[in-house]
Each structure stands twice: as structure tokens, then as C-alpha cells.
């Protein structure tokens, strides 16, 4: 006869034995990492700077996905599509210009993704040049940044992955000047999709970087949308401000995607209004009629580039990334072969190679986290704000005391796994 204990487990908590076993073998985030400070809060979660207790005390960025809440209680409500994507895709890829995922820890109803740490990002570099140095990014640096960005994108595309959210904040740079594409939260595999891309996410790409076919309501789109975004990023690096800084028309109450009039106007203002000759498919676009009602513009990209990217070849690359017709737009593969990259100054693997030490952008500023969940108790203030003194304080130096940040999270719930280094080659074989 079954005892009460067993009966109750079978009837009310059939996974109890399993859970107990898993939790017992779990190694918590704080037992493995010393949380140094808070970096940024984004759409899907919060990013922290952390130092590993093992190895050589390597620095990492830990992205904690927001746990879902039901009322005030944190509850299991299902892993977000974005986290599933980011975990799944990151497990499959391995490339110098893509930020590497070191491990994923599932703990306390939250997901922690541990990435290699990148000291800078494009947004910060742009800001540094426009606000602090008040000088443009040098030609050599610009070229290296764009080259490595395209190199990473080519890898993603060859793995049949669309990034779908390329923008300066998602493109990171290590302290060694190596570009790392990050944030695969919107990325997806387009090899044999079971549903049309449009069916999954109605809106992709941050508005300023969104390709014209998306703005025109295309139901089908391709990797060319990422190449458009690269063009926008390149122009922004060159001019230190977004090239097409339109106002986004918000979804209406029925979640219909509105016509993005202002964004299109900003694009037409520089590139001219597209016609059937430039883009034969434009007449079939859902928003074609709305577009025809807009004022007419002529192309003045060459003028725009004249004062911003002096090199003719630089202009030519940008022109080809901004081809309206997605089928004729430059691919990542062809972009990488572009003449601009073959002429002097050649792109370098350390993008900052030519930059004098004092002009290198500052280290990431880290702060105390307002949300108490991940950070050590407030009295531990030594982490605060040291990062902005350029190159002065080696990161993580004074706060590696083990056990100093154990206060968040109980030991229960979840377990960790290490994906350790390069994914096994069978994965690469599976993806391409």
C-alpha cells in the first residue's frame, strides 16, 4: 500500500523527486560569479558585469532575463520567445565577431546568460566622439568597425540567421578592438521556416535602422534588411548621428502596423523617392498607395557623403547598402569584397590600432543596481563609477573578494550548465 507521502507526490507534485535532485546539484550564479555592477537595462532584462571565481577571474557580462510576474509574485509563466531564440541560436554559432555565450544558468525562475565581456559598443563610441572628443571617428577606425561588423553579419547569414535588430547599441567592441555583434533576442533562423517570417513578429528592427521594404509593409523579407541596417550604422558612425532619425508611428489599439510616414520621409530626403526603375517590386508593396501621396525627393546621398565620408569608395559602399530593391542591395558577402576595404587605410583587427591611448573610448560605466535582485548589499560601494576614468583602473581589480556578493537569490531552483568554449563541430555542421 502506498504511504501518504508517495500518494501526495504522485497526485500533487509529480516532479518533486526530479526537482529535488536537480536543485541539489545546482551551482548558483553567485557561487560562480562575483557581480561587480550593473551595466544596462534593456527590453528583455538587465545586464551586469561580473567576474568569474574560477579560471583567471575572467570578466563577463551576465544578462538576466526579467522573470515574469503574476501580480507581485515571481512565477513560472513560460520562457519568452526572445530568450529561447537567444539561447538556441547562441548555442549553434561560434565566430570571432559574434559575442560568445559562455553558459546559461537557470535559477530562481530567471535565466542568466553569461557572455564574454565587451568593454565598448558602437553607441558609446559614437557618443564619445560627439560629446567628449568633438571630432569624427577617423577613417581607419570607421573602416575597421564596418569591416568587422560585416564580417560577423556574413557569418550569421551563412548560418541562415537574420539578426533583425542591428543598431549601435547591439554592436559591441572588446578592449582589444574586436567587434562583437550581440543581442540575438530578435534573431531567427530562416532556413526552412515553418511560418512566414511576418507571421511571427509584426515589427522587426528599431525604426531608424528599418529597411524600406519593412516600412512599406512587405510580408516577406530577407537578409537584405540586415544589410540596410549596416548602411545606417555606417552612416551613423561617419556622421555621429542617426542618418534617418524618423518618428515612429505607434501601433494602434488593434495592433495594426501603421504606415511609417515620417521614417520613410527621412529616408527619401537623402536617397530620393524610389521609383519602379530603382525597385520594380515597390508597386506591389502594401503601402505603395500611401507612399505615392508623399512629396517627391531627389537622391542627394553623394552630397551627404561628401562632407562625412570623403572617400569615394566609402560613398560607393554606402550607396550599395542603401539600394532600395532588396534583391539588388549589396549582400554581406559582396560588401566584404568591396574596394573600399582594399584601399588604404586597410581595416585592422584591432579597430583602435591607430588611435592614441588617450582617445580610446572610456570603459563601461557600471553602477549599483536600483533593482536589488542581482546586486550585493548597498554598503559595498567600491564598484561604483570607477569605469569612466579611461584606462586608469583595471576592471575588477579591487572587488574580487569571494563571497562578497552572495546576498541575492536563494540556492533553490534551477541548475547550471556550461557550454564551455567553442561549440562542438557537429553543431556547425548542422547549421552550415
Amino acid at each position, binding site marked *: 500500500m*502506498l*504511504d501518504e*507521502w*508517495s500518494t501526495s*507526490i*504522485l*497526485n*500533487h507534485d*509529480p*516532479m*518533486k*523527486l*526530479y*526537482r*529535488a*535532485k*536537480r*536543485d*541539489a546539484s545546482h551551482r548558483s550564479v553567485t557561487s560562480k560569479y562575483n557581480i561587480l555592477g550593473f551595466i544596462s537595462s534593456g527590453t528583455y532584462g538587465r545586464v551586469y558585469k561580473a567576474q568569474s571565481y574560477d579560471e583567471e577571474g575572467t570578466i563577463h557580462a551576465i544578462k538576466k532575463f526579467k522573470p515574469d510576474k503574476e501580480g507581485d509574485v515571481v*512565477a*513560472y*509563466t*513560460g*520562457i519568452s*520567445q526572445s530568450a*529561447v531564440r537567444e*539561447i*538556441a*541560436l*547562441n*548555442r*549553434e554559432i561560434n565566430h570571432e565577431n559574434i559575442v560568445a555565450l559562455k553558459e*546559461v544558468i*537557470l535559477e530562481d*525562475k530567471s*535565466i542568466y546568460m553569461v557572455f564574454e565581456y565587451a568593454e565598448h559598443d558602437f553607441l558609446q563610441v559614437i557618443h564619445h566622439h560627439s560629446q567628449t572628443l568633438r571630432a569624427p571617428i577617423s577613417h581607419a577606425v570607421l573602416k575597421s568597425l564596418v569591416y568587422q561588423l560585416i564580417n560577423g553579419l556574413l557569418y550569421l547569414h551563412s548560418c541562415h540567421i537574420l539578426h533583425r535588430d542591428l543598431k549601435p547599441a547591439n554592436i559591441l567592441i572588446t578592449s582589444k578592438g574586436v567587434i562583437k555583434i550581440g543581442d540575438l533576442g530578435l534573431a*531567427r*533562423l*530562416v*532556413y*526552412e*521556416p*515553418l*511560418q512566414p517570417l511576418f507571421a*511571427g513578429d509584426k515589427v522587426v528592427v528599431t525604426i531608424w535602422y528599418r529597411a524600406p521594404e519593412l516600412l512599406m509593409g512587405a510580408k516577406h523579407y530577407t537578409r537584405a534588411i540586415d544589410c540596410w541596417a549596416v548602411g545606417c550604422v555606417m552612416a551613423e558612425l561617419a556622421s555621429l548621428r542617426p542618418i534617418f532619425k524618423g518618428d515612429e508611428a505607434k501601433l494602434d489599439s488593434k495592433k495594426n502596423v501603421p504606415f511609417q510616414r515620417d521614417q520613410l520621409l527621412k529616408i527619401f530626403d537623402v536617397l530620393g523617392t524610389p521609383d519602379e526603375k530603382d525597385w520594380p517590386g515597390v508597386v506591389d508593396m502594401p503601402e505603395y498607395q500611401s507612399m505615392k501621396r508623399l512629396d517627391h525627393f531627389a537622391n542627394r546621398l553623394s552630397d551627404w557623403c561628401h562632407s562625412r565620408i570623403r572617400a569615394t569608395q566609402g560613398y560607393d559602399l554606402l550607396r550599395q547598402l542603401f539600394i532600395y530593391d532588396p534583391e539588388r542591395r549589396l549582400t554581406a558577402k559582396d560588401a566584404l569584397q568591396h574596394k573600399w576595404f582594399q584601399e588604404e587605410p586597410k581595416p585592422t583587427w584591432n579597430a583602435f590600432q591607430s588611435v592614441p591611448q588617450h582617445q580610446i573610448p572610456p570603459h563601461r560605466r557600471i553602477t549599483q543596481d536600483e533593482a536589488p535582485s542581482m546586486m550585493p548589499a548597498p554598503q559595498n560601494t567600491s564598484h561604483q563609477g570607477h569605469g569612466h576614468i579611461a584606462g586608469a583602473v583595471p576592471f575588477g581589480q579591487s572587488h574580487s573578494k569571494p563571497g562578497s556578493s552572495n546576498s541575492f537569490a536563494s*540556492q*533553490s531552483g*534551477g*541548475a*547550471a*550548465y556550461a*557550454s564551455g568554449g567553442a561549440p562542438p563541430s*557537429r553543431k556547425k555542421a*548542422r*547549421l*552550415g
Partner: protein
Amino acid sequence: MVDRATLAQARYDDLQYVDDPECLDFLAIYFANLITKLGKKLQFRQRVIATATVFFRRFYLKNSYCETDPFTVIAACCYLAAKAEESPIHIKVIVAESRAMFSQENYNVKNFSSDNSKIAEMEFYLVDDLEGDLIVFHPYRTLLSLCRKESGTHASSSNSEEGEADEGPGVGIEDGPRYWGTGEGQLELTSAALQTAWSIINDTYRSQLCLLHPPHLIAIASIYLTFILHPPARPDAAHTLDQDHANESSPEHPTPARQPRRSSRQANHAPSHTTSPKKPQDPIAFLADLNVSLPLVASIAQEIISLYTLWDRYKEDVSPEASKLARELTNSPMSSGASPLKRTGSRSESGLASTSGGGTPSAENRDDTVDPEGNYITPAFLSSVLQRMREAKLMDMAPRPVAVNKRLERTLAAG
């Protein structure tokens, strides 16, 4: 991929709680059937069902049936697979459908929770046990890149929505080489043959094959078995993998009118063919030309046949297709000839070619494929086996009045 020793190790604990080890194989069929049914109910495409099944199998490489609730795991696998395949469904839907299905009389699972968070929690642990490895490659892709319908239209570009073999738009000819090196050219199959190959692949998920062999080899084994069921229409077509393909270069092949005419691939490999572009494709030669181990393919085919033999003794509402395939394969002339299939043994003596002519076995004579005792394994029986396993396991684990289990108790309390 794992080896058999790892598989055996994974079932070690479960083995302690069953009388007959075969029960575990039947459970494997049972669970896969449940996933398929639930998937169909949720209107999943075949690939999502396959992914969910692979998740389930991988999970039970690390865990035992008796220590978990496989029904909760099934629901979570379906929920997660839908996301991994970018066709998510709401958690409420999966919980409601699972509950409705599992509580049906023939499954007899009474206590499936209606609490969403139970499935969400399971999903969380599942991702962890799967080590984040959520992108799964299936044999369907290989099938579609190797084969196409003889009509000349590419299998995947045909318009029929019902035909499952039409799954996966975008498998272009240009995608084939990514998996097949330089292999140009595709094998042309009748749409019936393509459907058969597709169904055989579906069926392989009832076993552990997806853990033991890479998907492309499973696909090739399925194509191989398809040839046995749909032999090319010519007398000497009966040569098999372990014969070398000397026949291939023989110029005496008749050219049956129905045979598709493709030669590009063979032309590149067999000079004698370049002069006769109207040569029909030789399927076995085609497979032999792929850069894979044919003995391995043959042994996988053998394993698939064993699965059908086992499956024949299991009765749910067996898909007519499956039982037909089971019958045809085990009765196939191939299985008694000088082929690797001859070890299928038991039934090949009965009525040799009776069904190989393409005739569908009628419902009445289906019964003669059942073992003499007429004992079927049913879902209800397996549910009760599982229940007993879990109860016995719990009895072993239950906290005793004595202090021996204090530690375990504490662990459990913490959970």
C-alpha cells in the same frame, strides 16, 4: 549522438522497476504516440512534433521514467518545441489540451495538473537538461534535398497543404549541397514513394533511433526501405546494398516507360552512362554514390524493421499507414533474400510476396500479423505499468521513521 551503452545506462534505474525489459521499448512507442497525438491536436507541423520527441528522448537520457512524470514532460516538450520552431502556442492551450487528452480512458492519467506554472516550471528545467541545445536537425530535410517527386516539380514546392511531404518551403536545390557536398542531382520518387519515405521517418521517432544515428543516415535508411516497398519497375531492381553495384554499369537495363529520366548524377560517375542519357536512375546506385557507409545504412534499416515488428504488437489506434508499412516490410521479399534484411526473421516465411505488389492489406487479414496469443500491448496497460514503476520508486525513496533518510528529506523539503 549517443551509443547504446549510454542508452542502457539511462534506462538502468527504470529497469529495476519493470518485470519485462521490453516494457520500456513499448513505453518509448507509447510516449512518442502521445506526443504525436498532442501535436496533431495542437495543429503542429510534423517537424515541431519531431523536435518535441527529440527533446523528450534527450531528457530521458539524463532522467528516468520512474522518477518523473512523463506526461508533464511531454507537455513541456511540446510547449518548448513550438517556440524553438518559431511557431509558439499559448501555455493555456497546451495545458488544456494535454489535460483533456491524457485523461481519456485509454490513457487513464488522472492527475495531470491544470496549473500553467507546472508546465512552465518543467520547461525551465527542460531547457536546462537540454543544455540549451534547442535547434534540431531532422531527416526530413535530407529526404527533401535528396529526393523529389518524379513529376519534375520539386517536392517542397508543390502546392498541396495536406501532403506532409510538402513541409518546409525553401528547401532549394541549392541547399542540398550544404549537406551533400557537391552531390548534384536528386533522386526522383513517385509521390507515393516520397510519402512512404516521409512516413517511415515519422515512425522512426517511436524508437531511440534519433539518439543513436545522425538524421541524414536515418533519412537514407528510410529511402532504402522505400525502394523495397516501391521497387523500381524492372526485373533486376532487386539488388541490395550489400551487393556491389556491378549492375549499375550494365548497359542492358531496360528503360521502363514509367521510369523518370535523370542522368546528370550518374553521368558524372559512370562514363558508360554519358552515352545513354535516357538511362533511368538506379536508386541503389544513387544511394551508393552518397558519401555514407552503406553497411551502417543497412543496419539502421534493420533497426527500423525491428521497430515495426515491435510496434505490431502495440495497439492504440495504430495509424493504418504504420501497420501497413509494418506488414509490407516484414513480409517483403527483401527480408528473405540475400539482403541484410533477412534477419527480420519471424514473419518473412509467411506469404512472401503477397503484399509487395502494392496491394493494401485489407482490414480482415491484418489480424494474421498478430502474435499467436493475440496479446496486444495497450496504452492503458502501459499507463498502469508506468504508475506501478513510479509507485515502487517512491516507496523506495519514501522517508522512513528511521533517520537514514534525513538528508533526502531535507533536500526534498527544500525543493
